[in-house]
């Protein structure tokens, strides 16, 4: 009591932890702090080992600095605001900024099927894939042996020709006959020992006249020959049987022959703005882009607006004092919201089936709902309405209860009817509170992949254009382009998502500006 009275009167915001740090260190608090900081250190140690073994010294240094910084921050009693801000900032970086940066960096590469790894990996894959059995060669029985310690000694292949029974021992110098199986002084590696040296065994080859003897597992060996070889000097792959040469093209990330043929195994390279220019210049995209964009806006606005109007209507109806069984209605109304939309979308798709669907059967009609463009668009909007209005109902109910009753009473005194009161007082106040939600709902529906993909898959498709359907949103349309025909093209997909991000960002920024203007008017 006395401290408060005698405390500095100028301090508007008392910060008890700062002035008396001892008070905050209760036993429980201290324990939590120790556990959390321990976890932090444990995570750092866990992350440090792969960084150290991979010799990523910069990363390791940053990790150490970050950990030390965090430890200092939470051990020292000072820097109170930072203590609150840093966790949020870290999560912001990990879950928001990093994915955005990663997407952006992917957009400048050709990362995708056939271009996933490095050039070295592609070369290895090409060479490994070209090792074929020498026609008519013997299949040998194999034992993996060593003269030294099974874990470290130099390896050799002990092979038996099943026909002649001839036993030979082979190493990098070639084959020589062996006296004994195994010969004296040699140890046979068991499967456990051998599997510990798996990579050595897989890479091991005993040169022969026609090629080399390689392992097929741990108990068989075959004589094989790598038909394709990489020549670092000319930076090309040569086929030793046909003599064909594929030259490395570091702009494309592929080995390309003079006749234009490319080897399937490529590698990831930076392609600059190629993915972005492709989005802008590709005829398949530009041809249908505008139509898709317009429908996407219609879909997002109608989904958001429709659910809002219906949800608000229900909320207002349930506000009325003359309404009975309010609790029951509220529960019933929230039900669609409580069901997993993933399953509900599939159920709705089946309900729209022409011959077996519930809707046609109940109504006794025979409409091919998802088969014609207009009815399919109506159908997906109906599904959206059903799925989305409970949410709008909930938030509007909340917002309505926050509007003081005096305001409505005041309109009555002024002689306004219920509709006028709603239009002039309640709706504007509701919109002030709900605009941010409406904008985020719009942004969500603009990219509502599931709503389309699980019901119509973008269809129906015109007979003469299988790449763009009547209910395709930009996201489903571009998903098909990026992951459809040519396998997964992550680089291209990332470029597209940046474009979609820009569209949504522009719409949201404009809307928020307008909302702010509105707030200034009504508050």
């Amino acid at each position, binding site marked *: 009591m006395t401290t408060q009275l005698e405390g500095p009167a100028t301090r508007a915001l008392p910060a008890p932890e700062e002035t008396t740090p001892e008070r905050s260190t209760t036993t429980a608090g201290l324990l939590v702090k120790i556990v959390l900081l321990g976890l932090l250190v444990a995570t750092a140690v866990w992350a440090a080992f792969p960084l150290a073994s991979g010799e990523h010294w910069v990363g390791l240094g940053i990790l150490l600095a970050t950990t030390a910084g965090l430890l200092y921050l939470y051990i020292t009693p000072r820097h109170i605001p930072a203590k609150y801000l840093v966790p949020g900032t870290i999560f912001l970086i990990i879950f928001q900024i*990093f994915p955005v940066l990663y997407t952006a960096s992917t957009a400048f590469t050709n990362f995708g099927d056939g271009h996933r790894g490095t050039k070295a990996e592609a070369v290895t894959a090409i060479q490994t894939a070209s090792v*074929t059995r020498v026609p008519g060669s013997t*299949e040998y029985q194999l034992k993996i042996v060593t003269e030294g310690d099974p874990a470290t000694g130099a390896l050799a292949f002990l092979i038996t020709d099943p026909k002649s029974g001839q036993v030979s021992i082979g190493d990098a110098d070639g084959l020589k006959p062996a006296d004994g199986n195994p010969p004296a002084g040699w140890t046979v590696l068991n499967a456990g020992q051998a599997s510990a040296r798996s990579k050595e065994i897989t890479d091991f080859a005993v040169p022969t006249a026609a090629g080399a003897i390689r392992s097929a597992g741990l*108990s068989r060996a075959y004589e094989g020959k790598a038909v394709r070889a990489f020549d670092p000097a000319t930076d090309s792959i040569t086929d030793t049987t046909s003599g064909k040469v594929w030259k490395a093209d570091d702009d494309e990330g592929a080995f390309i022959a003079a006749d234009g043929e490319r080897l399937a195994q490529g590698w990831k390279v930076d392609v600059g703005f190629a993915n972005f220019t492709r989005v802008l210049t590709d005829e398949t995209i530009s041809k249908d882009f505008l139509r898709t964009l317009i429908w996407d806006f219609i879909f997002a606005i109608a989904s958001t607006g429709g659910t809002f109007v219906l949800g608000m209507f229900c909320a207002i109806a349930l506000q009325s004092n003359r309404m009975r069984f309010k609790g029951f209605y509220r529960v019933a109304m929230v039900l669609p919201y409580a069901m997993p939309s993933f399953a509900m979308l599939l159920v709705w798709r089946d309900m729209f089936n022409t011959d077996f669907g519930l809707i046609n059967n109940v109504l006794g009609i025979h409409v091919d709902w998802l088969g014609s463009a207009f009815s399919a668009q109506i159908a997906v909007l109906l599904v959206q309405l059903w799925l989305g209005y409970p949410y709008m109902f909930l938030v509007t109910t909340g917002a309505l209860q926050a509007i003081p009753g005096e305001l409505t009473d005041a309109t009555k005194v002024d002689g306004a009817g219920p509709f006028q009161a709603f239009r002039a007082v309640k709706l504007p106040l509701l919109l002030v509170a709900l605009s941010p939600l409406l904008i985020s709902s719009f942004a969500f529906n603009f990219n509502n992949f599931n709503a389309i993909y699980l019901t119509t898959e973008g269809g129906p*498709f015109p007979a003469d254009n299988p790449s763009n359907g009547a209910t395709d949103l930009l996201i489903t349309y571009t998903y098909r382009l990026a992951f459809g025909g040519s396998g997964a093209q992550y680089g291209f997909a990332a470029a597209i998502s940046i474009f979609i991000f820009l569209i949504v960002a522009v719409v949201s920024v404009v809307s928020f500006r307008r909302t702010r203007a509105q707030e200034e008017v009504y508050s």
Partner: protein
Amino acid sequence: MRIRTAGVIAASMLCLAGVAACGDKKDDKAAGSNPSAAAASGELVIWADDKRSAALKPFADKFGQENGVTVKIQAISKDQQTAFLTASQQGSGPDVMVGAHDWIGNLVQNGAIDPVQLSDAQKSGIQAGAIKAITFNGQTYGVPYATENLGLIRNTELAPTAPATIEDLVATGKKLKAEKKASEILCLQSGQNGDAYHSYPLYASAGGYLFGTTASGDYDAKDLGVGKPGSIAAFEKLRALGEKGDGALKRSITGDNSIATFTGKKCAFLVSGPWATADVKKAGIKYDISPIPGFKGGKEATPFLGVQTFYVASKGKNKALAQEFVTNYVTTPDLAVALYNAEPRPPALTAALEQVKGQDPDLAKWADAGKNAIPLPAIPAMAAIWEPFGKAEAAVIGGAEAKTTVEAAAKTISSSIK
């Protein structure tokens, strides 16, 4: 105070961004450097789908005990191919992967699987079609253990004899429909966006093809059959069977309701695979399996042959052991029989097929239905076929003109093939 706080935040942000950026770079390099770094373990990791994981478990344990190594089976329930590719690239993938043979093209172009050298004796113990399916660019990529293909399942109470041609089937179906014994002529799934896998037998019978073959017998991505006169004629025939024609093919019959409609006795004929028989048996329907009939005077209605395969991952940490497991252990009939018991698909090993044929009369019928099945093309270009082909099928079933539809599909397909 405030300035210092901002400084701390800025510094930690920089630090984290730096770590994140390095982590990114690390990912790129990791796949190359990792296998050697973490090879020292006698452990074999196998990825399979849920059903097969359970069936594999006892055999994996046995293999582990016999060889003094640990074998881990991990069930991957969804998107196995993508999961495998992504994990492989990061160096956290399995040593052995179990999956469909038509992944081969994509797995090879991503350098994710190694060829498997089978001995002549092992090859001759496996069905010829299955060996052909896993052969890609002249190499065998993996060991097949089960095959699957479409056939015609019919309700023998409604249709006692197997139809010799599609025309016979339609005639029987129409008669049953007129007698109100069935509401549909044929249950062949299409949906609003078509189904290339299920419609292919009819397409082939009517003279269409997807890809030509090169001299070595591989599929040739440069010789696209969609858009050729034969394919247009085939789509004309599909159109004649469609909603504006006989009504045998309908977009309202989807992958979700096709089998259920058959088990609900609403149609006498179902085009499906071995996976459908469990439901049909459960519904207590008397059924028989026969080859899918072709058009009268047309070619044979060859279904696709799908082959379930064990692959050796290129970026596995224990490739020698993986090769040993796949080439010398998977090729034993016991394992194939156990996998058959987990899910009844005909084993690819002839010895195993003989062994289970006795307990299940359906197997021989499935094998007969797939006698001339052609391997599902494994070339990466096949990815370009599925959607446009299916959509063209759905469009002509709905009554669209065949020529323009097929030509549009052909254009879309060829623009996606690199």
